[in-house]
């Protein structure tokens, strides 16, 4: 069972995070102080950390900087009330792995934490990703479904790679937009849907079990349905 350290001084937010994570089978420890959080975060038993930027004792930016200086590689999700792009860049540069702005939807937070957990688990560098009968050769840039080669545009390839790397996980539209395109603005709801729709038409052809699923209210996930 994965274990997560939540460093957050606002009680309401902390409870919200804990409730969402616990309900998805994740163990949660809560700390409200920055310097105490730094001590606890060094414990290798944690699989990920959510870190508020504004904390009593020591601010989140210093916590993540010192953590990385100590050689701790536990993934960190930075949470801040500031949605400034500068702030995001600073957080990620200091060693944060992802950045979320307050107030956030719990499912968005959960989706990001799950991606971080997956990243934390030791992975063999893969050259071929596969989900059910879908195969993605990262070296030769070839995608195959049921042994039939698919012709994908570069963006579609990147999108599929992201979905397959996190197969079985819910990926929100914002996460997809940030990771695949690298943009940090609000593109409007249906733009990502259209791109997913295209990819879906190429992958989930008639007669085959659909792999790309819409998660109501959240985003998408690529998984084999039983």
């Amino acid at each position, binding site marked *: 069972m994965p274990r997560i350290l939540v460093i957050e001084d606002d009680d309401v937010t902390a409870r919200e995070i804990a409730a969402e994570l616990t309900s998805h089978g994740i163990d949660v420890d809560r700390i409200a102080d920055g310097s105490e959080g730094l001590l606890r975060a060094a414990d290798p038993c944690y699989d990920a950390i959510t870190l508020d930027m504004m904390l009593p004792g020591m601010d989140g930016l210093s916590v993540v900087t010192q953590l990385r200086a100590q050689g701790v590689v536990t993934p960190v999700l930075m949470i801040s009330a500031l949605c400034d*792009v500068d702030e995001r860049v600073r957080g990620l540069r200091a060693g944060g792995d992802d950045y979320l702005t307050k*107030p956030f*939807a*719990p499912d968005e937070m959960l989706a990001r934490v799950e991606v971080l957990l997956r990243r934390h688990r030791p992975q063999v560098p893969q050259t071929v990703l596969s989900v059910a009968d879908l195969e993605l050769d990262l070296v030769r840039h070839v995608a195959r479904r049921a042994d039939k080669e698919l012709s994908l545009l570069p963006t579609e390839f990147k999108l599929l790679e992201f979905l397959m790397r996190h197969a079985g996980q819910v990926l929100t539209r914002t996460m997809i937009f940030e990771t695949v395109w690298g*943009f940090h*603005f609000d593109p409007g*709801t*249906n733009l990502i849907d*259209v791109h997913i729709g295209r990819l879906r038409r190429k992958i989930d052809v008639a007669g085959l079990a659909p792999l790309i699923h819409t998660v109501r209210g959240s985003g998408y996930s690529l998984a084999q349905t039983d």
Partner: protein
Amino acid sequence: MRKLTDSWRSTTARLILIYGTFFALWGGVVIGLIYWQAASYLGRVSNDLIGRQATYFSMLDERTRLHALNDYDRLETRRLNAWGVFDAQGKYLSGTITTLPAMVPVNGPVALLQRGVARNDSSSDEHGRVRAAAVRLQDGRILLITRDTSIVDRIGTIVLQALLWGLSLTVIPGLFGGLLLSRGPWRRVHAIRQATMPIMQGDLARRLPVSRHGDELDMLAGIVNAMLDEIERLLGEVKGVCDNIAHDLRTPLTRLRSRLYRLQQQFGEDSDETAALDACMVDTDALLDRFRALLRISELENQRRRVGFDNVDLAEILREVHALYLPLAEDRGQQLALDLPALPFIHADRHLLLEALSNLVGNAIKFTPPGGLVEIRARTADDGPWVDVSDSGPGIPPDQRDAVTRRFYRTESSRSTPGSGLGLSIVSAIARLHGYTLEIAGSERGARLSLHCLDAAGA
């Protein structure tokens, strides 16, 4: 360079001009009065003298008179005096004057002959102005004596010259002084005008320059600055209230959304409540999007530093935006054309520029009916490249073109289209941050929105 007429419009120059004119007129009146009094006094004295002389001569006997008249003539070496004796009909008998001018009344008052009298001892036709008196002698003959009184005129000339010199020595330096004096205030007015430009363009943090003189202009600038302080404070308050509302409402809205989400999870896919919950989620998401956009604008407006600025490839950004929106346009049966010439690199924030151009293209696609055409076209100019995004939608009426960049503004025709009415405000805020301009025009088919990426070095 300012025009000379502008200088004369200034207060100082105008005062100097009015005062100079007044001074010249008053000086003219005073000197004219002096001249007139002196001339009339001298004229009276001369007339009196000539009248007496004529009477005196007429009372002498013939021989003595001849002597006396010759002496009278010779007495003045410059031939100022002259005399003539004429018979009763005015025919010349003797003396230096050869003709009896008709204008001189016999036994009358002294006459002033502007053209002088003809003399037999002078070949020249030039005759100075003379005063003449004619008396009838006892035997009926007429004696005419004249005296050149140009000395009086000369005094007049001297007085007149004094007047002119006096005027030119006071008025001309006065005018130059006025021009020089007006230059200082003019320069300051120019500085104030320069300072107001950014304020009018929305940079309310700027203030008018105040010099150390503490004069009227500084007092005025001080008053305007105090007014600007107040306006800035009030606007800040209004904006702060808006931002706070947006910020504070986001938290409960986000909670509302998470509760809806949890309910949705509980009910599962195919319950009766699912459709209603979905509609609730969509509305909540739209509200949250709107608040996010609102806060984004205020964040962009507060961002004065140019942190993420770098040399970016505009062509690459346009290709990315084109690729991002192409599927959306194709799904709507629209054509999304990209026309790129060779473009220079520009100094900009890559992410913000992407956001602005995405908004422009997304907007154009949204307002173009299925089957329409959206064109992204770049063109180069000396002061920086232009990006035109034109569509074949309904267009933006000319009277609403300024308003569409305002927050929440939507044209009448766009009310039925989903959206927050904040997209162009974001574009406009990003443009302002870069020092770019956003131009909204019409094209043959629909609307054309152009972002002019002004070269900061060239501007």
